[in-house]
């Protein structure tokens, strides 16, 4: 194959040249070239090595259906693999490299894989990586070791590891009509829709509009069809209600007429305009979709059909007409339909030498014969190509007599010198998006192709995507599909009478096979692989696809799907529609992850900060994240460890007074005449009996009887409650309440509002906490009479209205002070000032945890979605007077089983820390596996007890109290002797908080 630039033609700008490199060598092309056309113009025909066998491969197609000619594009350290050279527009400084070859494209060591052909047949991986079932290597990891090398030998381009420096953006768009494709059908459909005033978006994957018109030898209104298309596109783009997107590939069709597309904004430019993204990802919500996606030519499968120089007939034509490139000096064509004659006509007009047309049919029309004779091509009817001769590129083909009825090859082989063979096996409508949308395609006997299914959403197909294969019928169909009200006057088309219906010939299979016949070029699947899959029992197309990987490469079988199905149908002795087809999945063409992510990368979570956050940071708090919240862990001072810090903070609370930010607690305002009744149903305990101005600790269960969340709820008025939830469950509890209010008890007059962010909360705890309040609160008394345990008062601190509730998580005399979020820091600082005489100590989550572990209070670590109220010793909260959520299920046997884990305390016997997540075992020696009968949920050093302690869920918990065991943590290499004790480890009578 000696490809070269023709002296004229193509929509390239011959007055300018563009420099680029391929495999380290510099070449030049013209603006308008793709990498494929520019390399062909430079006489390069070997583009890469194949997936499994490392066979030399050249360019096969001219567009997004290209299976072979993929390269890696380098931009600095960034590599983008598997870019189709047929779509890659060249620019100055473009650096590209061929793939899957070592050490070089010309000399590839792995080409020895071709000799081991039978080893790499269908199902290779399944058969190989099971590992030896007998022999010395059985059960060893030997095969896993081999797998690494075998996998390295196969494959396409390598993904890069450098961070992508480019910017991508996302756009949402809305329109009445989305037209996909801007060939003759797309242009006319868009015009028909746009002239009715509809908002229209047209998406074209190529840089220019026109589709098949760009390489057509026909005349439209007596003019070059490419020029007609360009002017039509420009006129459309000028309409105010039309958005014309070029270089935009629509890649996904989703429910609700939502389509996704990628627009190549600047990645074809040598110097990207500042601020422009590389690609823009579109999500288009459209009223109606017109799929004018065209059709893909498909090959005929024959021995030796994969060498460089064998191409689709239409690709040979497009390189000549669109890019002014002759793909060979002596082009031959091999066909089962008329479209190759149209290619022959266009090629000879462009000055490409067509020496022979080999047609499997025994007779063709007079038009075809005339074209062959005008082109000066020898016409070989009832013949087929049965082999190729090629070193790294095609030098000749073997043709033999062929009977299209029987599929039999006969007669003496004849060799024809040719450096480029254009193959046409018929046309397959590009039904990918329609198939994604959900319908099952219909087989058309005439076209020997799958047509788009009946629409199941508001979409239509038109043009060759709908099976119209000549320009005249394409235009009239498109006008009506664009708008039923269309009154467009259609242009006059001059075209030869040709029939795109092919003879049903998909494979040429000579009785003696000396060469492989490829079906899927990108995954190296041969016709024999399909037959092997059949013999091994993989008959359904779904199995065939997965077993052979047919159609599963990055091109998704655009050229291989129908020939593969035809071969399978043939071996099974059924028709192609009986064999069926698989559904296409997004994306239509590969999409970079960067484009999908857009600007959404890195840490995307919202960061929730409490009103006092800045104060915490200014006072050397070390924070960590609890859900989305940032919360102080400890307040660090010089050189303390975390343990020293929380010990100091917790000790201060027990000895005098401490203050902690509790603004993160979930808060839900519940109002309405039936609010109390609602809470009675939600909580396990009674709230309707709660007096105004008092709070109560509440527990809620899930419907299945498992504990869900706990917290205090305050009755602020007869019909108003303020519920608090755990920080982590705030959202879920809100949703839970809304579900019951909306769906189950719509008759209850109750209204729910999330007020978590409305209030700032500070908890002060410790024997001196009342003295602190007395020093700063005005407008209310806070003594034991005015503010008893669980009482609520309203007052002011530093002029700010506050609501104070006396409740305790630490087990000390303690209060929660709530004020409007905007005044959080002011009130916090006023409390600190009032506490100054008592050395008030701000404390973080670690100390908060320590205080609650000492007391045996539960949190999310114990309410873990598996425990019941009984397991957590909260039975006393289960009302017997009323039903509540979960009450019907709580009595089930499994939830009352004596073997269940229940809450206990642990005390370390060797003065070593216990780690969270440790398992409780009896074995004094750490070993694996061991029988675990429980696990540690939370652990700390207790300053009150002077020991390392923990809470744990342990089988037969209560009856185990007093026993010894071991807390074992093999991951952290710990094995700690512990005594099992009651979970109330400190002040079990609660005298301190009631004091």
């Amino acid at each position, binding site marked *: 194959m000696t490809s070269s630039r023709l002296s004229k033609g193509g929509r390239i700008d011959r007055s300018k040249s563009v420099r680029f490199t391929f495999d380290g060598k510099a070449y030049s092309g013209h603006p308008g070239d793709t990498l494929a056309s520019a390399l062909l113009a430079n006489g390069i025909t070997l583009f890469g090595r194949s997936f499994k066998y490392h066979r030399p491969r050249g360019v096969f197609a001219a567009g997004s259906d290209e299976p072979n000619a993929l390269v890696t594009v380098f931009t600095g350290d960034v590599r983008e693999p598997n870019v189709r050279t047929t779509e890659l527009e060249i620019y100055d400084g473009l650096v590209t490299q061929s793939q899957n070859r070592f050490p070089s494209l010309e000399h590839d060591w792995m080409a020895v894989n071709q000799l081991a052909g039978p080893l790499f047949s269908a199902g290779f991986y399944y058969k190989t990586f099971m590992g030896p079932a007998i022999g010395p290597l059985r059960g060893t990891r030997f095969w896993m070791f081999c797998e690494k090398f075998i996998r390295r030998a196969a494959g396409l381009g390598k993904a890069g590891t450098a961070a992508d420096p480019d910017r991508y953006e996302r756009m949402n768009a809305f329109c009445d009509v989305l037209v996909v494709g801007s060939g003759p059908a797309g242009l006319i459909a868009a015009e028909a829709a746009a002239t009715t005033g509809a908002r229209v978006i047209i998406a074209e994957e190529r840089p220019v509009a026109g589709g098949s018109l760009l390489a057509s030898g026909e005349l439209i209104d007596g003019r070059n069809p490419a020029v007609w298309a360009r002017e039509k596109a420009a006129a459309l783009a000028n309409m105010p209600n039309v958005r014309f997107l070029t270089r935009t590939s629509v890649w996904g069709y*989703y*429910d*609700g*007429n*939502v389509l996704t597309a990628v627009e190549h904004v600047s990645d074809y430019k040598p110097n990207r305009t500042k601020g422009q993204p590389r690609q823009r990802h579109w999500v288009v*919500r459209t009223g109606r979709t017109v799929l004018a996606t065209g059709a893909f030519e498909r090959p005929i499968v024959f021995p030796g059909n994969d060498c460089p120089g064998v191409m689709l007939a239409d690709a040979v034509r497009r390189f000549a007409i669109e890019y002014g490139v002759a793909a060979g000096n002596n082009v031959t064509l091999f066909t089962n339909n008329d479209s190759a004659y149209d290619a022959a006509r266009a090629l000879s007009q462009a000055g490409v030498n067509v020496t022979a047309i080999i047609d499997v049919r025994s007779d063709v029309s007079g038009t075809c014969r005339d074209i062959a004779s005008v082109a000066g091509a020898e016409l070989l009817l009832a013949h087929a190509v049965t082999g190729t001769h090629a070193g790294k590129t095609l030098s000749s083909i073997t043709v033999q007599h062929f009977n299209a009825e029987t599929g039999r090859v006969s007669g003496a082989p004849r060799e024809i010198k040719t450096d480029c063979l254009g193959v046409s096996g018929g046309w397959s409508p590009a039904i990918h998006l329609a198939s994604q949308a*959900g319908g099952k395609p219909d087989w058309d006997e005439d076209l020997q192709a799958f047509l788009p299914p009946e629409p*199941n959403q508001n979409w239509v197909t038109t043009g060759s995507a709908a099976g119209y294969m000549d320009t005249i019928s394409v235009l009239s169909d498109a006008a009506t599909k664009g708008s039923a009200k269309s009154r467009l006057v259609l242009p006059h088309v001059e075209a030869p009478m040709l029939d795109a219906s092919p003879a049903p010939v998909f494979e040429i299979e000579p009785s003696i096979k000396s060469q492989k016949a490829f079906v899927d070029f990108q995954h190296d699947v041969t016709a024999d692989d399909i037959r092997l899959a059949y013999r091994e029992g993989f008959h359904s197309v779904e199995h065939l696809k997965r077993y052979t990987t047919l159609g599963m490469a990055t091109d998704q079988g655009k050229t291989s799907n129908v020939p593969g199905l035809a071969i399978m149908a043939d071996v099974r002795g059924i028709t192609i529609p009986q064999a069926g087809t698989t559904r296409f999945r997004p994306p239509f063409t590969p999409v970079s992850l960067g484009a999908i992510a857009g600007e959404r990368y890195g840490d995307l979570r919202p960061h929730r900060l409490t009103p006092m956050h800045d104060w915490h940071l200014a006072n050397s708090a070390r924070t960590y994240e609890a859900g989305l919240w940032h919360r102080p862990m400890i307040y660090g001072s010089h050189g303390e460890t975390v343990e020293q810090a929380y010990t100091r903070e917790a000790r201060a609370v027990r000895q005098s007074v401490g203050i902690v930010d509790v603004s993160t607690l979930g808060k839900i305002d519940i109002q309405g005449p039936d609010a109390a009744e609602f809470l009675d*149903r939600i909580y396990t305990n009674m709230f309707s009996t709660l007096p105004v101005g008092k709070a109560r600790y509440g527990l809620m269960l899930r*419907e*299945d009887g498992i504990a869900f969340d706990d917290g205090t709820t305050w009755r602020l008025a007869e019909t108003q409650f303020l519920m608090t939830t755990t920080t982590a469950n705030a959202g879920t509890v809100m*949703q839970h309440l*809304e*579900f019951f209010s*909306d*769906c*189950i008890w*719509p*008759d209850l007059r109750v209204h729910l509002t999330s007020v978590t962010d409305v209030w700032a909360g500070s908890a002060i705890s410790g024997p001196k906490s009342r003295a602190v309040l007395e020093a700063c609160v005005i407008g209310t008394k806070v003594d034991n009479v005015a503010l008893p345990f669980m009482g609520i008062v309203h007052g002011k601190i530093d002029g700010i209205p506050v609501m104070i509730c006396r409740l305790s998580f630490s087990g000390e005399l303690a209060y929660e002070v709530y004020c409007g979020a905007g005044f959080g820091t002011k009130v916090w600082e006023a409390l600190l000032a009032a506490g100054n005489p008592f050395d008030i100590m701000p404390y973080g989550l670690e100390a908060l945890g320590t205080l609650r572990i000492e007391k045996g209070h539960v949190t999310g670590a114990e309410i873990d979605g598996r425990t019941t109220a009984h397991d957590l010793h909260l039975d006393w909260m289960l009302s017997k007077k009323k*039903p*509540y959520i979960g*009450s*019907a*299920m709580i009595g*089930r046997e499994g939830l009352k089983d004596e073997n269940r884990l229940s809450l206990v305390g642990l005390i370390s016997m060797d003065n070593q820390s216990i780690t969270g997540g440790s398992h409780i075992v009896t074995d004094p020696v750490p070993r694996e596996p061991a029988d675990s009968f429980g696990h540690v949920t939370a652990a700390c050093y207790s300053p009150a007890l002077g020991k390392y302690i923990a809470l744990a869920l342990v089988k037969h918990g209560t009856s185990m109290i007093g026993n010894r065991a071991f807390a074992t943590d093999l991951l952290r290499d710990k094995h700690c002797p512990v005594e099992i004790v009651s979970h109330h480890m400190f002040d079990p009578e609660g005298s301190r908080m009631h004091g």
Partner: protein
Amino acid sequence: MIIKCPYCGPRDVIEFIYQGDATRTRPEPASDDRAAWNAYVYDRTNPSGSHSEYWLHSGGCRQHLLVTRDVSTHAISSVVFARDAAVSAKSGELA
């Protein structure tokens, strides 16, 4: 998928949270019919075709919606407020 919220209009599915099968009936709160409760809490059919289900418009009006959706095509045939549906179901029971 686009859900036509009766309050907010047509909105993308990312604004909604699926809240489960809407065909099951919660037994009377005081009922101790264990089988009925088991069926309500655990038993789900998996029909092909039309299905009614709850969706919470969490990114919008925060109303629960009763959506009738064909689970094989995702075609939505009706969307109403779950509250309205529950009220009319209750009044139907009384009548």
